[in-house]
């Protein structure tokens, strides 16, 4: 006769082990079945919007978030449909993505690489985000792009202008719609030469970080090719607020053009200081002294006030464009929020739609399938004219806008006027010039 020693603890232990053993194959099969990170299983799919909600670019981040919320609305078939009406691809039906309702989570990049990575990681690991998008800084974009590559999700960059994002730091899982420093130089230089002549001496003040270097190099190379001479380049600390001690040496130099390779608060302050020091009224080498701001944003122009009047720069998109896509986006955004969208809002909205469209065309959320659908994808109707998502570096190629501070603005949004729409052929370059290696797509899991 055998005796069974059944104890409460023994039952619990045996049950726990058996339960874990039974559950394990289910867990593994779920992952292996999907074969990629955060495969959506229910009726919803989660996107991660990683934007600066605090810090110096919080206003730009708020506009990005508005655009993403609008995009989600349109993807789910709510509102007026926005750019789904004008997008050349008709894969999106307004019924979510692959029939799954789109939900989203948000993170705060704080415009700091470590904070941006932490919030992206949290959205991927805790919230199950299948794609991460957003940001207002190249440093953040490069950091989050690398994280998404490791994690096996797609990264659709927000506002990032450095050549490196799709140059030496490009990744197979990362895609950029926004233009870059090279394109700025290539678009801006001919306009500058036409307006200011080819016999000019330029002095560059450059923000001492990655974006500043690539922008200075691009503008310098392009303007020198037009015949300009660069007489001075000075790096300014990113934390600088008063640029007077950097601007006064310009008065003693041989320069007749000052190029401010600054963005955000740096640009607002350096331009304000330069105008205060009378550079706009100055005659140098027998010519009017000129100031150039390579990368403009409407939000920055607002901060600099009347100082932007007549100053050339470039931008990715502007709400005053009259193509059907731009008009539709301005209508949708303006009706919902009461003011026109910024270029940051536009690029983020478009990125969200491009991702969703790629999923629909691929028929899968698998990041490698989505990446393949985005590669060499040609589209139109999104506000920038015919656009190519180049497969070699995952950079969008489209027309670039050269703009100028408006002399007589009619409203607080009417600060820039489009001077020239530079054709895409003029800003296209060989993908190999910036080095880097896309590597292979990582589906994660």
């Amino acid at each position, binding site marked *: 006769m055998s005796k069974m020693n059944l104890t409460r603890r023994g039952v619990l232990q045996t049950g726990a082990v058996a339960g874990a053993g039974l559950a394990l194959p289910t867990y593994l099969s779920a992952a292996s079945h999907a074969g990629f990170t955060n495969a959506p299983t229910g009726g919803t799919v989660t996107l991660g919007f990683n934007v600066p909600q605090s810090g110096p670019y919080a206003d730009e981040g708020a506009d990005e978030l508005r655009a993403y919320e609008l995009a989600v609305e349109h993807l789910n078939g709510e509102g007026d449909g926005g750019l789904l009406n004008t997008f050349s691809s008709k894969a999106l039906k307004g019924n979510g993505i692959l029939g799954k309702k789109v939900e989203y989570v948000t993170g705060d990049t704080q415009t700091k690489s470590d904070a941006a990575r932490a919030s992206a990681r949290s959205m991927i690991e805790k919230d199950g985000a299948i794609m991460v998008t957003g940001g207002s800084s190249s440093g953040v974009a490069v950091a989050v792009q690398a994280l998404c590559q490791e994690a096996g999700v797609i990264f659709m960059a927000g506002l990032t202008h450095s050549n490196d994002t799709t140059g030496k730091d490009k990744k197979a899982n990362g895609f950029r719609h926004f233009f870059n420093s090279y394109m700025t130089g290539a678009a801006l230089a001919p306009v500058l030469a036409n307006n200011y002549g080819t016999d000019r001496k330029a002095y560059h003040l450059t923000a001492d970080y990655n974006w500043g270097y690539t922008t200075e190099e691009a503008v310098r190379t392009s303007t020198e090719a037009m015949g300009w001479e660069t007489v001075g380049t000075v790096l300014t600390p990113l*934390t600088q*607020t008063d640029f007077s001690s950097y601007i006064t040496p310009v008065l003693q130099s041989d320069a007749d053009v000052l190029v401010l390779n600054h963005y955000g608060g740096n640009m607002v302050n350096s331009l304000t200081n330069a105008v205060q020091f009378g550079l706009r009224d100055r005659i140098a080498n027998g010519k009017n002294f000129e100031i150039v701001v390579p990368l403009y944003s409407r939000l920055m122009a607002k901060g600099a006030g009347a100082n932007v009047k007549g100053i050339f720069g470039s931008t990715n998109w502007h709400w005053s464009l009259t193509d059907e896509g731009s008009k539709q986006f*301005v209508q949708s955004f303006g009706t919902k929020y009461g003011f026109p969208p910024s270029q940051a809002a536009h690029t983020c909205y478009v990125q969200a739609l491009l991702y969703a469209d790629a999923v629909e065309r691929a028929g899968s959320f698998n990041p490698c399938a989505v990446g393949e659908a985005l590669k060499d994808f040609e589209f139109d109707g999104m506000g920038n004219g015919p656009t190519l998502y180049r497969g070699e570096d995952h950079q969008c190629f489209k027309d670039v806008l050269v703009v100028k501070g408006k002399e007589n603005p009619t409203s607080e949004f009417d600060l820039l006027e489009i001077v020239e729409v530079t054709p895409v052929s003029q800003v296209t370059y060989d993908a190999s010039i910036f080095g880097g290696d896309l590597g292979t797509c990582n589906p994660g899991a």
Partner: protein
Amino acid sequence: MEAIILQILNGLDKGSAYALIALGLTLIFGTLGVVNFAHGALFMIGAFCAVTLSRIISLSHTVIDDTQTDFLGNPLKVEVPYVYDWFGQATGDAIIDWAVPLSILFAIPVMIGIGVIMERGLIKHFYHRPHADQILVTFGLAIVLQEIIKYYYGANPIPTPAPSAFTGSFDFGALMGFDAGQIIYPYWRIIYFMFAALIIGGVFAFLQFTTFGMVVRAGMADRETVQLLGINIDRRFTLMFGIAAAVAGLAGVMYTPINSPNYHMGMDFLVLSFVVVVVGGMGSLPGAVLAGFLLGIVESFASMREVLDILPGINQIIIYLVAIIILLTRPRGLMGRKGVMED
């Protein structure tokens, strides 16, 4: 030579802001013994007093202009300031144009009020706590204040220009026999320097030549003895906190045309101002002013291209290098008193 003169002017201009903030910091430290890390936030709030008054003066009502359309194609809503209705367009424009100088009158009572509320409401509870506690609580307060400003005014800089009469530059070069246009300096920066000199002189005169100031100085030297004489020194020190807040606030008001104010501007000045205070000597008012101008000039020279070509990056560390050298050679700072913060 022209470059040197220009950098000296730059240094005096930068030094004006450093000196004004450091003066307020030293007043608070000298009277209350509190290391106030929220002082930069007071500078920032002063700047936003100018923004606020500018907005109040520009308060508008909407008029529909059927001849123009907005970005959505609807009839354009034109904002018409009430001052146009009350005083006519020319006078209204002049009032709006002079918003920053008018803000001085607005900022003084506001900043004194904020200073007194800060001192009575929070900081007085930390008088007998270690300096580390004071730094933590005032730094936390600074962050709270800047987040409040960001919530209401946004993160973007807000342009707040000087009156149009002061937007040009003065040609020092022509005055000194150099070529015209070689040594020019913006009118508003010259005004800022003169304003700073006036405020600094006013504070010193107030402390030196008034009975109130004499009592405060006595209290700074020996608080207990003054109290034993039956004088309510705490009340006077509270008011000094308010005055220090007003000095920082006025520095902020007048700074708005130089750089568009944003919620973070106080933090940009805070660390430098503490270096100024330490280099000048903790608790020394003349030391704070002297160190403010000295470090302003040193920083300006370090930003010259000729210097950067020889020592790249020196512009980012020069202030701290100078601080180290001064503290190594004069441990109490330039004009520090024995016994201050040495217990």
